[in-house]
């Protein structure tokens, strides 16, 4: 039976602590849209997305009102574009990108992910065309998100792709320099990319997924922080972990409810709940502030990696029992420009890219939403990607890089995107050159960890 305390706790979480469902993401397979004629394929792609996702936003809004839970984003992920582009005689990837963008707009979703290629072991048909088209595609579209998987624990790292992606990130920034370099903010370079991730910009609908599926990403850093603040400074770290687990359980149950409701109402199977703590730039919705609540003076000081490891693990342990299927990225996100506490720490000089790199070894994603100087050479960006991919490959976890070269800006300048993407200072990167290493190309062999059979 419900009691008053529980009811008021839920209301407080939603009203004062920014509890929300971050995204309902509909995954749609486009494999049956393949056609040798690009025009015909594009019209099939458009029709299928509209047919499946026409009611997505409306249904999301209905659930939002009925249950009183804010659902911030309704989004779509599709089969990696390279897979279907491979079937065309004319592989004009930008044309396909425009079609996807129009379909997203027509459905009313704010992002559509899947302008992607999976090249961890090498380039298949369509892959190079997609990668080469990414900067132009992101410059010409508004809602399209792109991701490329360049490595995995099983296959090692495709360093030819790493070299290409450094250039793609740089060029994406240059082509959108007049719009705050927004291009690379919609581009993620993965190692061990999950195929059912509902979060942007890295969402795509993997080849092993059903025709259509509903995935839900929860959020709630503010709730975790508030719970820790209420518990006070006297509890030890075991108690801190327990408290985070309990809170994560409640948050995830809410996500599971929304996911099953959305799945029933849309007549689409439920895929997974992604148990992530996803910050927003809003005050009180920060992962960095949770770490500070645990007792760090500022995020980025020594101890941050340990605190984040505790947080990431407790979120998973609490959430996993609350949902029938857990997947996606599941853990704590540390996107710098999207997190008020991280922004402050970066401005104060307490948080560096090297510290963030260490943090990515224990959190759920990687170097995310970091503004770097506009004159950073493509080789250096490739090397950042390679370092991050190596952490993911060796530790059998997902890592990713989403850095934004701030064209025309230098360390300490600010670059703002607005909305959920936030904004923040340009952070310094090492200026020594990894050029020769990156230009060797080839593949970094898969580590011993890959030989599990």
């Amino acid at each position, binding site marked *: 039976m*419900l009691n*008053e305390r*529980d*009811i*008021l706790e*839920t209301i407080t979480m939603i009203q004062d602590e920014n509890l929300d469902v971050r995204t309902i993401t509909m995954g749609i397979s486009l494999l049956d849209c393949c056609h040798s004629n690009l025009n015909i394929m594009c019209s099939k792609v458009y029709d299928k997305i509209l047919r499946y996702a026409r009611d997505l936003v409306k249904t999301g809004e209905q659930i939002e009102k009925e249950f009183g839970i804010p659902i911030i984003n309704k989004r779509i992920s599709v089969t990696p574009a390279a897979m279907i582009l491979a079937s065309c005689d004319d592989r004009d990837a930008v044309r396909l990108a425009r079609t996807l963008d129009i379909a997203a707009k027509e459905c009313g979703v704010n992002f559509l992910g899947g302008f992607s290629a999976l090249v961890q072991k090498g380039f298949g048909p369509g892959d190079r065309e997609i990668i080469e088209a990414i900067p132009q595609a992101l410059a010409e579209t508004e809602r399209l998100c792109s991701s490329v998987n360049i490595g995995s624990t099983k296959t090692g790292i495709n360093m030819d792709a790493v070299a290409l992606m450094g250039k793609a990130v740089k060029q994406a920034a240059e082509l959108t320099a007049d719009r705050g370099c927004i291009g690379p903010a919609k581009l993620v370079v993965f190692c061990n990319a999950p195929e059912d991730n509902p979060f942007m910009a890295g969402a795509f609908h993997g080849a092993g997924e059903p025709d259509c599926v509903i995935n839900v990403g929860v959020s709630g850093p503010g709730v975790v922080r508030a719970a820790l603040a209420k518990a006070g400074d006297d509890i030890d770290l075991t108690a801190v972990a327990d408290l985070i687990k309990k809170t994560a359980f409640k948050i995830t*149950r*809410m996500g*599971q*409810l929304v996911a099953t409701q959305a799945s029933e109402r849309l007549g689409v199977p439920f895929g997974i709940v992604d148990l992530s703590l996803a910050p927003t730039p809003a005050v009180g919705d920060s992962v960095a502030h949770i770490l500070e609540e645990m007792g760090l003076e500022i995020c980025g000081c020594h101890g941050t990696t340990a605190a984040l490891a505790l947080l990431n693990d407790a979120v998973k342990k609490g959430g996993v029992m609350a949902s029938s299927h857990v997947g996606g990225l599941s853990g704590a996100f540390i996107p710098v420009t999207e997190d008020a506490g991280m922004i402050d720490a970066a401005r104060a000089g307490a948080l560096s890219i090297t510290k963030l790199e260490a943090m990515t070894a224990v959190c759920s994603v990687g170097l995310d939403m970091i503004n770097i100087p506009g004159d950073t050479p493509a080789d250096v960006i490739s090397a950042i990607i390679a370092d991050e991919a190596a952490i993911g490959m060796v530790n059998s976890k997902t890592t990713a890089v989403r850095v934004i070269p701030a064209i025309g800006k230098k360390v300490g300048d600010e670059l703002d995107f607005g909305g959920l993407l936030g904004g923040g200072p340009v952070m310094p990167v090492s200026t020594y050159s990894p050029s020769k290493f990156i230009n060797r190309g080839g593949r970094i062999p898969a580590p011993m960890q890959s030989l599990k059979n």
Partner: protein
Amino acid sequence: MRAVITVIGKDMVGILAKVSNECAEHNINVLEVTQSILQDMFAMIMMVDISKCNIPFTEFADNIGKIGDEMGLSIHAMHEDIFNAMHTI
């Protein structure tokens, strides 16, 4: 089907009347009411039956929210499943 209506804010005359009047108008039966003073704030929780509600529940939730805005109170009507999901195993 049941829902929970919560009213949080400064205590004043007529809160219960207004909310229950809105319920009656839409054929919503009030099953249980509890109220308390929480950190100087008035908190009322109503358990209601919405199975015979004569308008879509989302519309009712909107209406009751607006009444709250007019009175300077925070009023929410939410399906009970959200609370069950979060607080019971």
